[in-house]
């Protein structure tokens, strides 16, 4: 697997960073926000280059899964596996992963977005 002659080589290689795991421990929406504390960044030093990089990005400012995929140049599915691991290991905190339910909650969000847009 993953040898250059393998016709699936191109496909398999991106998942090398996850040690071949393709199923994230939990599903994370593309726009979910990830945050890391300074302590988590220190700890992520021992979690490998990719996870460290993600922790550093999320400590500098809150980042979505989509941004982490873009900045680390990992396909979305790969970034999702790494991020889900890091959430499970307490290296990242996950925000905004559940869709808003209920009229009031949804309306509040829409109102905030609307006023944010008008202030642009």
């Amino acid at each position, binding site marked *: 697997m993953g040898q250059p002659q393998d*016709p*699936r080589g*191109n*496909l*398999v290689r*991106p*998942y090398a960073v996850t040690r071949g795991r*393709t*199923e994230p421990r939990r599903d994370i*929406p*593309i*726009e*979910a*926000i990830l*945050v*890391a*504390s*300074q*302590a*988590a960044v220190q*700890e992520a030093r021992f979690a490998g280059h990719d996870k460290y990089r993600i922790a550093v990005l999320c400590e500098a400012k*809150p980042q*979505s899964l*989509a*941004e982490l*995929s*873009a*900045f680390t140049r990992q*396909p*979305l*599915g790969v*970034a999702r596996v790494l991020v889900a691991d890091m*959430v499970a*290991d*307490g*290296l*990242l*905190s996950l*925000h*905004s992963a559940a*869709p808003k339910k209920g*009229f009031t909650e*949804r*309306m509040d*969000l*829409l*109102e*905030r*977005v*609307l006023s*944010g*847009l*008008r*202030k*642009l």
Partner: protein
Amino acid sequence: MDFASSERAGAQPREITSAKIVIAGGFGVGKTTLVGAVSEIEPLTTEALMTSAGQGVDDASKVPGKETTTVAMDFGRITMADDLILYLFGTPGQTRFWFMWDELIRGAVGAAVLVDTRRIADAFAPLDYFENRHLPYIVALNCFDGAPRYEPDEVREALAIPPHVPLVMCDARHRESVKAVLVQVVEHAMATLVAEQSGGYPAVVG
């Protein structure tokens, strides 16, 4: 254990909320341009692995021998407050990657379908897609230089856009114009939510 984990990740006491608006449309209609006009960052690109049939690839070993391809989506970001971030996601130009569209619209506030007035018929596939989904959307006519000028009503009729779907003109290169499009999306989402709440629109099952 749990306590230790949340301690380490913690530090951010407040929940941060993100919202997303989807910018849909066919190939080259100006999606990336629109996103770039309001985004605080240069539009970024994220890639997903797909089979050429348009299915997502989670496990490469499950699709031996199938052709695979990457599908790129670009997106922008508007930080509205410490605890509120809006993302704008452009759909992949190729409408055959419906799988990715489904992932993009999940949890979205709403969508704008961009239409290039020089190639109106290209809008049928994206419009059909949204017609069958439970997501508020508007249609934005991107007026390219030298494109034929149609009246909005002519376009609405030509594309059979239902009366409850707002239709606006825009210039994807101009910030104020794009802001107006996004405001329309959110206002329409609010109106739809209110109508649903009071039993107005029948819910379309996606």
